[in-house]
């Protein structure tokens, strides 16, 4: 699964951030690259079955403090 994720993300890198760089949209490229790294990290963690902390308990805790 991890191998598939890496291969897919290589294609995504060529299509998305690199495509923006070729169009000389530098700012778009930088933001897209940052999001690409987040997206890849999440996909990799999911493929490895690592536990990713959910924001829901944090929101629930805040709301219960307000109540």
């Amino acid at each position, binding site marked *: 699964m991890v191998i598939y994720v890496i291969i897919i993300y290589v294609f*995504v890198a060529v*299509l*998305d951030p690199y495509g*923006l760089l070729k169009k000389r*949209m530098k*700012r*778009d*490229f930088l*933001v*897209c690259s940052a*999001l*690409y790294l*987040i*997206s890849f990290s*999440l*996909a990799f963690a*999911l493929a490895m079955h690592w536990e*990713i902390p*959910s*924001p*829901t308990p944090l*929101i*629930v805790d*805040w*709301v219960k403090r*307000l*109540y």
Partner: protein
Amino acid sequence: MSKEIIPAGQSISIVVLFISGSSLFMGTSSQSGNGSWIAQLLAILLAVPLVLIYARLHVLFPGKDLYDMLISVFGSVFGRMLSCLYIWYALHLGALVLCNFGEFSKTVALTSTPMLAPMLVIGLLCIWVVNAGIEVIGRSAKFLLLFSFIVIVFIQLLSVPKFEYHHMKPMLETGWGLVFADTAGSFTFPFAEIVIFLGAFGAMPAKGSARRVLIGGTLIAGLIIIMITLRNLLVLGPDILSSLYFPSYVAVSRINIGDFLTRIEGSAAIVFVTALFIKASLCLYVTSNGVSKVFKLKSYRSVVLQMGLIMVYLSDFIYADIMEMQSFAYHIYKVYALPFQVFIPVLLWLTAELLTRRKGGRQGSLQGQKQQPE
């Protein structure tokens, strides 16, 4: 690139499908038993003034979306901070919608398939349609609304033989307290969620009537939701209704016309999918648009793919299980969503009105000073 414009008819279709999206299969908050339809009515009445405030924002800032409004009213720094909050809200809401669909697939339709698979398929479809532009979402919504409406009315008619009117009695058995609790729940989920549409106000014609679009869309969606709530209540009864995760699916599965037309819930589920597709697409559009405004990008399309993928992944780990999803949707969400749906937009509206009047007053006094020497 030319500016994208969505006509009023298509905007209304988006609003209707957006509001009724999750409620079509999740149902609405039903602690009040057979009084839940009264709670829906009250929620619509509460939503109307809020929607009028949203429409007023379009009059004050024609051709601008929520992020432009926040930046122009609250300044570059604070406006961008509030924009970041809305980006999170839109991303989170999109992930919640996809998660609802994932849980629905896992629980009733594709029980052995990993939850990520159906969510990824819908997510990729949303990425595709948002990349194609808001006009494509508008055109899709117009067609899909017509289709959904026909299916909903058809199912409603087929359900009539299964209606058991004694479920409506005794009226307000649980008291007004729970009806008001349900009203608060239904107000935030789904009616006031339409605040997300403010992020697409830039695509509405500058002189278009946002009031007509938002009021019309909210009332039509409200009518659909009340119809579905009443159907579920009459077919299942208040006790079963409150114990189910997807009451509409179960209510439709009870349809049996002469032992010939049965088990049509699978076909009816297509309406749920179409509505949530529009809802998730609009959330993705608003998220990407927000990122492009905050970081001053040339186009929101630059980040659609990455934001869409992040939304899909987020929907996979956002809830531990279906019980947490249900509890969040009906108990936590009504408090969590309130600042995004009510407090910030009302603050924005009041500040914008104040600034507009002050500007108008200053222009008036300047004109007066110019006229005096004559």
